[in-house]
């Protein structure tokens, strides 16, 4: 039976790009975690009743790595936790990436969307990685991805790497692509879907919506698909791009 997990924070660091990284100690969580899944963390500040869904960046040897941006009260509270503090969370939750999609994998990550792609990238053979950020200061995890495969970086303002979007870099090499795995802002995902269709390549997209329960009961985090509104928390967050309907 599933249960709330208690996870001690054993490492904490603030990245140069501003996000907070926590390493959580819980063998069960680390064992069960699959690429693309997330944890639903209780915010125990007495005022936020909803949990915060945070994607799993990596998990191995009993340790689970999460990285998140401070966006509001909940993530602010989470960012203030230190080594030795314990988090209460549900997880791993959701349906992650399908690793057996076949062909050479293209990883396309935008901004904080790069984090859920790391554990996946580690499992793939010779992936090509395309990362996009707003500017030089926001570039994150480039070295770690580069250790896993050829990595190209783009910034919106051209202050680092190529000027433009990660998807533009990917499209130049699309003839080499078997399957695309993408996570990032909605406009990027929409463009990935369009590109995948243009070139007849399969794509898996990790979607994001404001979430409630995290297990498919409350129906607030749905996204539009060809088979109706589906729960991002339960039936996603990863969907086949063919299924997703963007407005």
């Amino acid at each position, binding site marked *: 039976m599933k249960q709330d997990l208690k996870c001690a924070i054993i490492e904490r660091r603030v990245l140069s790009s501003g996000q907070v990284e926590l390493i959580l100690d819980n063998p069960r969580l680390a064992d069960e975690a699959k690429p693309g899944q997330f944890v639903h963390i209780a915010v125990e*500040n007495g005022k936020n009743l*909803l949990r915060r869904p945070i994607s799993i960046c990596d998990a191995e040897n009993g340790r689970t790595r999460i990285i998140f941006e401070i966006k509001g009260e909940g993530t602010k509270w989470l960012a203030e936790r230190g080594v030795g503090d314990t988090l209460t969370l549900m997880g791993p939750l959701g349906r992650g990436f399908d690793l057996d999609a076949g062909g050479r994998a293209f990883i396309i990550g935008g901004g904080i969307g790069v984090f859920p792609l790391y554990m996946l990238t580690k499992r793939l053979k010779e992936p090509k990685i395309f990362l996009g950020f707003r500017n030089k200061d926001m570039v994150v995890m480039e070295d770690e991805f580069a250790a896993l495969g050829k990595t190209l970086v783009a910034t919106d303002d051209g202050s680092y790497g190529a000027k433009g979007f990660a998807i533009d870099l990917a499209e130049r090499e699309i003839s080499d692509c078997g399957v695309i795995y993408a996570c990032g802002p909605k406009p990027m995902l929409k463009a990935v879907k369009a590109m995948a269709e243009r070139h007849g390549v399969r794509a898996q997209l990790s979607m994001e919506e404001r979430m409630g329960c995290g297990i498919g009961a409350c129906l607030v*985090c*749905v996204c539009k698909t060809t088979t109706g509104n589906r729960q991002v928390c339960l039936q996603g967050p990863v969907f086949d791009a063919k299924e997703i309907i963007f407005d």
Partner: protein
Amino acid sequence: MNTKVNFCGIEFKNPVLTASGTFGFGLEYDEYYDISELGGISVKGLTLKPREGNPTPRVAETYGGMLNSVGLQNPGVEVFKSYYLPKLKAEKTCRVIANIAGSSVEDYAEMAKSLAGTDVDLLEVNISCPNVKSGGMAFGTDAANVEAITRAVKAEADKPVVMKLSPNVTDITEMARAAEAGGADGISLINTLMGMKIDVNTRRPVLANVKGGYSGPGVMPVAVRMVYECSKAVGIPIIGMGGIMTGDDAVEFMLAGASLVMVGQFCRSAGRRQGKERHNGLYAPPRDRRRERPYRGR
């Protein structure tokens, strides 16, 4: 300790139920603890045809609570009858309440008819959903409509009928009396309060539907007051809900006049155990308090 409650002739093993819309069809939470521990569950609001609901964002967090605007997304009553209900009845011992909604009096009657002869234990008639354009709350804020729908449902139903009332009215006792006059076996209250949240950075409403239903501990005093008023106004039994987070909160509703209580956000809130222990905390007042002053339920 005997926690059994007889409500409208149906025996509930304990008075703690989950509120419609907060708990799916129950099976989602069954992975975390045995939902047979509950007195019952009121399932996600059902309609004749499947509904896709409202655009997202459908949720906005507030201090100690939340707004939702799901808009009755559900797979339709036929899927409930053919899949969820048989599964719940075969595997679980909690009572199953079918929460039904419609956009006309005829819809409600049709829903009641469709659920007649099934294993559902009780019908809860949702005339108070604030998130749908037609029907829903528009029915629950007009006493003549409340009575008409109650009558129409009662004419078709073979199970006790509980009318779920909207708090978005000037005088809720008027609606309670109308339900009683229409032949309702009980009432449940409160549904969510209409609310709104604006993102000060984008200067836009957070919810795609602009307005939504507010729930959470902040609404509890309003809910307790309304249960109290209704219990003075009508003779039919009451299911009380709205912001229950502790055993004491549940007791408060019972002291106000509720026979059963329903929980919602409690199901997924922070800082408490997600499981059986949590619900056990609601079955009875905390042990030390009981020693001070024994509580006897109605």
